[in-house]
């Protein structure tokens, strides 16, 4: 979806506040971090659904809110959408029924975190592109989740590497099965993206781009 989370190349945010050195700025942010990970491990949603939930935050709230406010919004939304808590329970903080899910115990955390959630998959198709191929990112503007930022859409680049097949996030974010799609690192010259007059000299942007976002560039 084209919302304000897609920040690359936007103006108006001022200087970077380099005094913000810590991850957790407010004490409650630790709680949001831990709740988000712990609830995610219950297995009722995947990482792409988490990202899509955060992106669906009201655009003004997203920009005014801190990073962990995005997480809090996403967590509450998923808990409700997946039926783990009700709107009433969220408002009151008191449970109205029991859950058929059990908390992941502390003792299992280390192993789960060390395993993580690999997204590499087998794919029986042959990759459409290989390193050195010129590619054109398609023009598309889905209302649903995508990992193609707006600034590369319609732009030409060159494949730097093929990362093999990975879970395709656009469909995974709607809770469907893991579908494989080849993933490439694509190099875009800064001038191609921002225009020759506005790009900074001798610079490029490398973006990981899924095969369905691209076509061969015959120009």
């Amino acid at each position: 979806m084209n919302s304000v989370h897609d920040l690359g190349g936007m103006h108006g945010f001022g200087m970077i506040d380099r005094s913000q050195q810590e991850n957790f700025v407010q004490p409650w942010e630790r709680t949001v971090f831990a709740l988000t990970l712990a609830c995610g491990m219950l297995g009722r949603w995947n990482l792409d659904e988490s990202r899509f939930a955060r992106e669906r935050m009201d655009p003004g709230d997203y920009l005014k809110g801190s990073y962990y406010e995005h997480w809090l919004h996403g967590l509450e939304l998923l808990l409700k959408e997946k039926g783990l808590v009700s709107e009433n329970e969220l408002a009151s903080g008191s449970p109205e029924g029991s859950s058929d899910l059990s908390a992941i115990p502390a003792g299992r955390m280390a192993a789960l975190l060390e395993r993580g959630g690999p997204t590499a998959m087998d794919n029986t198709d042959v990759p459409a592109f290989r390193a050195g191929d010129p590619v054109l990112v398609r023009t598309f503007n889905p209302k649903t989740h995508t990992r193609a930022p707006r600034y590369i859409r319609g732009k030409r680049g060159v494949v730097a590497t093929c990362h093999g097949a990975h879970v395709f996030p656009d469909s995974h974010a709607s809770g469907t099965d893991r579908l494989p799609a080849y993933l490439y690192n694509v190099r875009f010259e800064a001038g191609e993206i921002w225009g020759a007059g506005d790009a900074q000299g001798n610079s490029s942007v490398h973006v990981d781009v899924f095969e369905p976002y691209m076509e061969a560039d015959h120009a």
Partner: protein
Amino acid sequence: MGNKELPHHGHGPGEIALRVRRLESLLVEKGLVDPAAMDELVDRYENRVGPRNGARVVARAWTDPAYRIRLMENATEAIRELGYQGRQGEHMQVVENTPDVHNVVVCTLCSCYPWPVLGLPPAWYKSSAYRARVVSEPRTVLEEFGVTLDEDVEVRVWDSTAEIRYLVIPQRPRGTGSLSEDELADLVSRDAMIGVALAGKPDSRS
């Protein structure tokens, strides 16, 4: 802020803390979350997993040519050799600074970051300003961080749009030939591995 929201969606500093406490208590009471597991999560990423891990990877790459080759070819495996792996580092790639190329990492769409080697990101990395600006004006951003590059040094910005996580291998500072691997690791800041600093300099506290 928040005047369009439902009452329990408070936004003021006190309101949000209350909202989080209510959510925590609800989820614990419903048996969905184990408080001890929450402590374990926070303690792990606040105290045990941090940029010292990445610094050891960099120092090893600087001192062991065979390791460097393994790291360049399959960063995930080479990093696992040192015991670092898992969530938000399942698929690693290193990008090496040279006299001709300087690399810098961002995630414009959210704030992806290689947790096993760098821990959790500083708040500035997650800020709108960093995410918006570093892809379109990387030289200006680097200068604000104190990194001024010659025009003939190419700047490569890596936007982590998928599940590949990037670690910058900074250039080894001159005159460090006699240092041990541990001493070299001391020269590698978190910022140098994001690409907003050079090795041998402290982090970006302004």
